Each structure stands twice: as C-alpha cells, then as structure tokens.
C-alpha cells in the first residue's frame, strides 16, 4: 500500500482534514472490519459535509478555534514514548496510552478484559458490534464524525456482570514533540452489579501544537456504579476536544469529576443518557484557566426514565485573559416523571480581561419533576477579604484561603480520600500559580504522598 505521505503534504491545516476526510481517512485510520469500516466511511462523508465547526454553530459560538483551525499538523505516528505517571494510588490496573492508543496489548485479568479496540474486534467481535457507536449519535457535532472517521485505534474495557470493585487508571501521553493531530477512542462496557472507578490523565510532553479529539462511549448497566476522574495537563498551544457519552441503565450510578489543569483549549462534552429508572448521575468539575487558556464544560444530562436523579456542580476560577464556558443542559423526556435534576455553576473572575460564559438550558417534557439551576459570576468577595484581613491575615493569604475553600466545595465531593488529597494538591498549586504547563504533576503528587497538606 502506498503511504499517504506520498500523496499529500506532510502537514496540513486542521480544516483541510475535514474537507479531505472521505479520501484521507483510510490512510490514517487503517483497515477495520466491516461494521467499523462502514461507520468510518459514513462519518468521513459527514465530516466533509458539515465542515470545520464555525462560530455560527450554537455549540461553538463561544469557542473560537481560530488558533487551531489553520495550525499545520500531521497525524500522530507511532510513538514509543510512554508515561508511567499515576494519580490514582488505589488503582490496580494501569493502562498507559500514547496519543490515545494503549501501549500494551490485550489483557484479561480477573474476568476483566481490556486493550486496544483493534484487538477487541478480534477477541470479542459481538460485544464490540453491539455497543460501538451506540451512544455517539446523541451528538451531531462534526468533531465526533471527525473522530470516528480518523481514529486509528482506541481503548476498550469490558467488565462482565458481577465482577465487583474495579479500579483502573489510564495515563495518556500526548507526544507533542512535533505538531500533530491525534484521535482517541474509548469503549467501556460495565455490565450489571459492578463498581468501576476509572481515572484518566492526559499529559502532553513537548512544546509543539497537539490537536486531540476523543470520543468515549461508556455503558453503565443495571445497578452498576461508574465513577470517573479526569485531569488534563497539556501545553498552552494544544487543544483537546473530548466527547464522553454515557448511558445509565436501571439503578445505575455515574459520578464524574473533571479537573482541567493546563492546555490551550480543554473542552469536554459529557452526555449522560439516563435510560433506566432510579439512576443517579453526579457530575462535578473545577476549572481554573489562566493566561490565554480556555476551558469548556458542556454537560448534557437527559432523563429518559422515571425516578432518576442528576446533579451538576461546576466551579471556575478565571485569571489573565482566560475564558471559561459552562453549558449545562438538563433534558427531561416525556414520561420521565419524578425526575430530580439540579445544576449549579459558579465563576470567579480574577482579572478584568477574564471571561466566563454560563449557559444553562432546561428542557422539560414531564410534569412531575423537580429541576433547578443557578449560576453566579463575580469577582472575589471583597467584604470577606477585608473580614479576614481584619483578623490579621495578609491579603494574599486571605485570598488563597478563600480560593482554596471555593475549590474544596468541589474537591470535597470526591469519595476517595487519597484522590481528594492529590487533587487538592494539584488544584491548590494551580490556584497559587505554581502549576504551569511545564510542571511535572506526578512529581507534585508524590510530594503530597510524602508530606500531605491539610
């Protein structure tokens, strides 16, 4: 087979990959069995048809991609670099990824199977066929089509019914030695009666531009709990646009925590599709973009069954010329009676040029429901600062304590105490301005283990 490099320039603008998707994708994504091949073909056509997301689209209105639109990038090649950094001490399974693809090959461990998606289609073809692409259709964002067309491989995790407690962690090393584009994929199936905790860190090494997309599809079946933690530590010229689709069946529970640390654009879009009665979804996040960074949290919770519960708690601290977007949506489908859905977003602006956009959106098609949302955006409470100063605290210390406390309202919700402490260390470092994109977050966390802060 002829290398695609022969046919096109080594690097292209991100936008060009959209236009050329129908021709380019097979060279970048490789060969796949029938149903995935078909999905890719269709997605490639959609990618070209929809084109690169523009500012007139509601979903991208507040997220200018100018800087990346014309960035010349090449598809991520095979990288041998691996990160063994870890943030989740309790995890017994650690899966290193490079540019979104598992480094090690297929594993079966205590009935759990995990590895590359390309292996999963060989090992458990029916399972992949049953679930692959099943949730992604919730969104019509061209980015998800783009990802589907171009992904080269991805992570597959399968937890069969009644396995019990599973704690796993992946660390995704984004090799930013040269300007590149990577597309990560995840398919996670949690069968009934399990408790799965998954922590994931994206970390870029190198100074070059990296543009990443991710589509994760996560199925949480009857009476199972799925808890996920995310941290992103990229350089300031890199972007990561992630879509996380989750389905909660009867009595299932999903808890999510996201902590964007550094990166030019860190955008996560979570779709929690509640299809089972009595399911519970709790999504939390704390973002603190500074300098020219931007964070986007787009959280969509759809209640489609009776007696389900959801809670969204997102807080931000925006400094410098940074921007933060929170777009929280609650959808109560017809018949989803006795839904309880809450949403709260708070933003503190630390500079005159910092911007926060809070866009709540409630769509309710059932009558017996209890829904609420609230959002605040303001500067640091000057009254409280004076109050603390009046007790002898220097203004910097007073501000720090207040901001720590503000972040702690999110961090304090993390059930695992160790994870809580490690996250606190990272977030406090970010608040103090000690955590830049050059910081080794794993070293910071080791400090926490050696000498904990209160």
């Amino acid at each position, binding site marked *: 087979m002829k290398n695609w490099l022969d046919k096109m320039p080594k690097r292209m603008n991100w936008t060009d990959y959209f236009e050329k998707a129908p021709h380019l994708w097979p060279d970048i994504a490789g060969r796949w069995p029938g149903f995935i091949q078909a999905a890719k073909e269709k997605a490639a056509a959609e990618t070209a048809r929809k084109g690169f997301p523009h500012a007139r689209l509601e979903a991208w209105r507040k997220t200018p991609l100018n800087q990346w639109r014309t960035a010349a990038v090449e598809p991520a090649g095979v990288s041998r670099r691996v990160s063994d950094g870890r943030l989740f001490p309790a995890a017994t399974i650690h899966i290193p990824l490079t540019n979104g693809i598992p480094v090690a090959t297929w594993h079966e461990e205590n009935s759990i199977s995990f590895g590359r998606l390309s292996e999963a289609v060989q090992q458990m073809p029916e399972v992949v066929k049953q679930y692959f692409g099943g949730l992604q259709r919730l969104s019509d964002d061209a980015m998800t089509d783009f990802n589907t067309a171009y992904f080269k491989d991805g992570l597959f995790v399968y937890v069969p019914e009644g396995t019990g407690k599973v704690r796993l962690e992946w660390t995704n090393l984004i090799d930013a030695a040269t300007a590149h584009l990577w597309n990560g994929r995840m398919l996670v199936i949690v069968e009934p009666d399990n408790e799965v905790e998954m922590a994931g860190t994206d970390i870029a090494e190198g100074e070059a531009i990296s543009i990443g997309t991710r589509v994760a599809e996560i199925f949480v079946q009857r009476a199972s709990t799925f808890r996920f933690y995310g941290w992103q530590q990229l350089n300031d010229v890199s972007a990561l646009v992630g879509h996380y689709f989750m389905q909660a069946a009867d009595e299932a529970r999903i808890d999510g925590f996201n902590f964007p640390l550094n990166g030019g654009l860190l955008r996560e879009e979570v779709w929690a599709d509640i299809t089972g009665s009595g399911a519970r979804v709790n999504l939390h996040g704390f973002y603190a973009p500074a300098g020219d960074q931007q964070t986007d949290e787009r959280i969509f919770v759809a209640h489609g069954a009776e007696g389900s519960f959801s809670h969204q708690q997102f807080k931000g601290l925006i400094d410098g010329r940074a921007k933060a977007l929170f777009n929280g949506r609650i959808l109560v489908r017809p018949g989803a009676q006795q839904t309880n859905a809450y949403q709260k977003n708070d933003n503190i602006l630390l500079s005159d040029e910092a911007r926060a956009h809070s866009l709540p959106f409630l769509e309710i098609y059932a009558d017996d429901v209890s829904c609420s949302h609230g959002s605040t955006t303001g500067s640091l*409470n*000057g*009254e*409280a600062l*004076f*109050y*603390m*100063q*009046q*007790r*002898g*605290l*220097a*203004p910097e*210390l*007073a501000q720090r*304590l*207040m901001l*720590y*406390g*503000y*972040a*702690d*309202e999110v961090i304090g919700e993390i059930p695992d105490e160790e994870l809580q402490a490690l996250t606190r260390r990272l977030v406090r470092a970010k608040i103090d301005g000690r955590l830049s994109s050059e910081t080794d977050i794993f070293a910071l966390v080791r400090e926490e283990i050696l000498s904990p802060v*209160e």
Partner: protein
Amino acid sequence: MNKQKPLLEIKDLHAAIGDKEILKGVNLRIYPGEVHAVMGPNGTGKSTLAYVLTGREGYEVTRGEVWFNGKNLLEMSPDERALEGLFLSFQYPVEIPGVSMTNFMKAAIDAKRKYHGLEPIKPGEFLRMYREKQDMLGLPERIRNRAVNEGFSGGEKKRNEIFQLAMLEPLLAILDETDSGLDIDALRAVAEGVNRLRRPDNAFLVITHYQRLLNHIVPDYVHIMHDGRIVRSGDKNLALELEEKGYEELARQNA
C-alpha cells in the same frame, strides 16, 4: 486622669465616602483598661468610624490623625492594624464559604505569632485553646466547626465574633452593635466573655443602641455621636439619661 499613654488617640478625624463627608471631626482618647461606649442615632457614622479605624476600603480620610499604641494607625494596612492589636466585631459578620473556622483561626493566630517573632502554634495547643474559648462563650455545637459564619443565625454570628476576640486577645476591641440580634442568654454570655477578657492593658470601644448591654459591660465613658461628631461625653449615667430623654432632647440641650 490616667497617667499612662493613650492606647488610641483620634484627633479631628474627618472621613468621606466619595464626595459625602461622614465623619466631621471626631476626637477620642482611650487609655488601657478602659471601656468606652459610643451611642447615637442610625446613620451618624458609628460604623464608619469603626471601618476607618480598621482600614476598610472605600473611605477617604480627609483630615485628622489617629495614633494607636504610639503608632500612626492610618499608615498601616488593615492586616497590620489587626496584628498591632486592633479588632472589630462586625455589625454584619461576613460568611466565607469553604473556609473552616479552625483553619481561619489557626491562620490568624499564626499570623499574629509570626508578627511577634514566634513559631506557629502547635496543633494540639491550638485545639485545646479553641475548645476552651468556645466553651467559655457557650458556642452551640452545630456552629463549632463550620465554614466561617456560613449558615449561622444572626445571634450565632455575633457570638462567633466574640469567640474570635477571645482567641486573638487584641489590645483594642471595637464591638459594633454586637448586642443587636442577641437573645437574653446570648447577651449575658457575650458580656461575661468580654468582662473576662478585660485586662489592665486592653480596652474596649462598644457601639450600641441600648442601655441594656451597658448593664452587663459597664463603661467608664459614654459618648454620643451625632452627624459625624461626638457631641457629648460623660460617664455611664449619660446612657441612662439618653434612654430617658432620647437623642432629640439631648442634642437640643447640647446645642
């Protein structure tokens, strides 16, 4: 007359918020060991005086000077003033979500110790002191370890102010209407707390609308403030006279 040096000396203090002059020439001298009460109608500048003394933003001192313990108070930042021993029990204490009372008090005590060249307080010693002072003021269990003032009732906030006063042991404490919003038991507890904290080297400036508090915390001097000035001063009997006649008549007598 007291032979010591004054702890606080306010000379011809004028202060404005924007273009509006609020304090129009306040003079006051407080010696160690004394309790002064300031009374006066709403909006005459009592809280303004407290804020100007403690250095809150938004006030411009247009004339006059203030000396505290021999130092020029108006040149200091709010935290320096606190570290020098000035304390304000706020008329409206502020809620600070996410900051626990213990962390807050530990930080305040350590800041003070550092200012005086001391090591941070040992956690065990801190907790012992923390509990002891809460017991002394009969602080309800439910507010003992919460975020600062968060979800406290009005009265609980006021008690919590006096608890902080007890922890920090300032040289001069200004109590801005600490008695308003307190029930009778709380009032007694607060007053007892204050009386127990009285020492020959410290002083209190008590702003109140009611004679009632002054039955418990007996002042050496009572000042009546009107339209940004202290218009009359006397001993504790002035408060009784005021209760009887009201501001209008006293102001008329004064004129």
